[in-house]
């Protein structure tokens, strides 16, 4: 990656304003102090004079809202490519004639600024299943229309483990460019033509004059330090984990991992790579309605409930095993990479204490153990 540009803090905000002025949608992390909203009084998480910041990817209305200093947003970027719900088609009926309206699959260009590398990487991972036996026009249409610019990660906690699953806090996988914070601004490294086009279109905002002592020096050290900090949390051999799970599907370890799981499915909602959806026909009245797809979760019993009443995954520990199995064995066996980018949201969001770091560690230990040794103990 030879091309490097410098963009000052001011110019980055200016670039954002330029995009917005030009009518381009910009999505970026926005911090909201929910305790400052008029309804804060009643929002239980707040005290009257308190402060509680929620960070989300939002469609910007102003360049001022851009906040690059924060950690991981609550929800991943997924919802901008696979919305929680979206219409697939709508129908009307009169007598015996039916009219179907399909939704457009072409989208206006937009830019994601300061994407977390784990979230962008997830897009690339999910691209594979979205173009496997069926090409998902809506997903692909949004992917094609979107330029994703990563921001090298600075805020890392004990649930981050991207390096254990082949990603990194300064990865550009799934993204079109990377911003690295340096003194007074950012170093921008385009990774794709879309990423380069940004420099071409807004050349005045960028400078090819990258301060020598920043990149290659201080910034590179920080990037390496960040990687090391994540690696401290978890190191596994993803390939042997994959093979062990495939070979030991019935091992009690896999089911006993899930004892405390409530099956709430919050982990799949916040996961950047969980992409399963359901399709429902929403009747809106007589003879008209909308076919809509919406997020589904493998943690719900109804996910696999057959019309006959039979449910192949009828208990929670079997459903939890499926989640692990799908992410770390089925998907890599079919598509060559794990369905996880190590963002750690599933762990943070789980108030029952299901901890993927701990679970992967336990499987890794089991996978490293000689075949003839005793079966592994449950992680609890």
């Amino acid at each position: 990656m030879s091309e490097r540009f410098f963009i000052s803090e001011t110019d980055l905000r200016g670039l954002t304003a330029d995009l917005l002025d030009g009518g381009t949608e910009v999505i970026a992390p926005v911090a909201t102090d929910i305790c400052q909203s008029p309804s804060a009084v009643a929002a239980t998480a707040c005290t009257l004079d308190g402060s509680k910041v929620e960070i989300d990817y939002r469609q910007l209305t102003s360049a001022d809202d851009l906040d690059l200093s924060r950690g991981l947003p609550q929800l991943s970027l997924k919802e901008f490519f696979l919305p929680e719900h979206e219409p697939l088609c709508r129908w009307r009926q009169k007598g015996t004639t039916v009219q179907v309206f399909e939704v457009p699959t072409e989208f206006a260009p937009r830019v994601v600024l300061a994407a977390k590398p784990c979230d962008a990487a997830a897009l690339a991972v999910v691209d594979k299943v979205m173009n496997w036996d069926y090409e998902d026009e809506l997903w692909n249409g949004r992917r094609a229309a979107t330029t994703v610019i990563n921001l090298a990660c600075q805020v890392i906690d004990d649930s981050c483990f991207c390096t254990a699953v082949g990603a990194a806090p300064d990865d550009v996988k799934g993204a079109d460019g990377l911003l690295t914070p340096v003194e007074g601004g950012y170093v921008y490294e385009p990774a794709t033509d879309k990423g380069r086009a940004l420099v071409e279109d807004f050349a005045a905002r960028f400078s090819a004059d990258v301060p020598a002592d920043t990149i290659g020096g201080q910034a590179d050290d920080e990037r390496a330090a960040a990687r090391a900090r994540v690696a401290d949390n978890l190191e596994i051999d993803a390939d042997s984990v994959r093979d062990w799970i495939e070979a030991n599907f019935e091992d009690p370890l896999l089911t006993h991992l899930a004892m405390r799981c409530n099956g709430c499915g919050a982990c799949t909602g916040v996961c950047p790579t969980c992409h399963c959806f359901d399709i429902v026909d929403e009747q809106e009245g007589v003879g008209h309605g909308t076919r809509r797809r919406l997020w589904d979760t493998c943690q719900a019993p109804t996910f696999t409930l057959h019309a006959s009443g039979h449910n192949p995954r009828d208990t929670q520990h079997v459903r939890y095993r499926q989640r692990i199995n799908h992410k770390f064995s089925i998907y890599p066996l079919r598509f060559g990479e794990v369905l996880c980018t190590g963002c750690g949201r599933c762990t943070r969001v789980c108030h029952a204490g299901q901890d993927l770091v701990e679970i992967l560690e336990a499987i890794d230990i089991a996978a490293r153990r000689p075949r003839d040794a005793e079966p592994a103990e449950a992680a609890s």
Partner: protein
Amino acid sequence: MTGPAIAPAYAGVDELRRVARELLESGEVRVIIGWEDARRGARPVFITDPAEADKLIFDTRCVHNLVTYLDPRRDHVSELGRIGLVVKGCDAKAVAGLLRESQLSRDHVVLIGMRCGGVLEEGELPEPLALTPENVAPRCYGCDNREPTLTDHLLGEPQPEPPRPVMTIDERVAALDDLPLEERWAFWTEQFSKCVRCYACRQVCPLCICERCIVEKTQPLWIESAAHPRGNFSWNLTRAIHLAGRCVDCGECERFCPVGIPLSLLNRKLQQIVHDRYGYTASDDPENAAPIGDYRLDDQQEFIK
């Protein structure tokens, strides 16, 4: 800035570990469900080996209502055998709810009740903190059941009242009640619009025990499952009214909500309604019949023409 002090474990932990060990050793129960201290703080633990009874803790971080694991549809728990369950007073009310609704036979479970002095809002902390108005779970204030009566073993020592939170749930409800109608509507529709329909609120609720939740009934589709405002309004409203007169105020729904919808305000409002109209308060007495499903000839009907 100094944060709240670290608080010692509540009295009775040693007793708890001893009772748990004895119950497991004697075979009276096959599993003890309690709390442990893990990488990210307190969390539920399932202990089957008497030697591991010392893992059990009981301090201000033990927020979880473990009664949710008694749901008869959790096969992987029930297949372990007879359960010994550690309960706080609020949790014991949920056990009473399950007994009331024929979802549990009393002899299937050994209840180890703990005298409680309140818990934190969140249990994911490396150390138990002393309760302060800022960190205490708001529902603990004014708790009427800090010593459960529906128990087989009652452990620990009487604890002082937890501190009054900066703002109690009742005060928050009152603040909302004082708003003009349109503002309440704006508040709730905004809150509900955050909902991603993960149903975490339902899954962790010890009393949301339906085999097939109404929201999963597709013919007819009473509640749209898509997370648009219309579907979200119906869902959150229905979840709440299905718990009218059943909710035990354990707050798990709100704690598990990944997008922070203040569900306990709705729940508390419903508690107030059933209390004001029917004089009912959830208790851990299974004989205390719930108000919905019952009636009095002279029930208030001022809203009926």
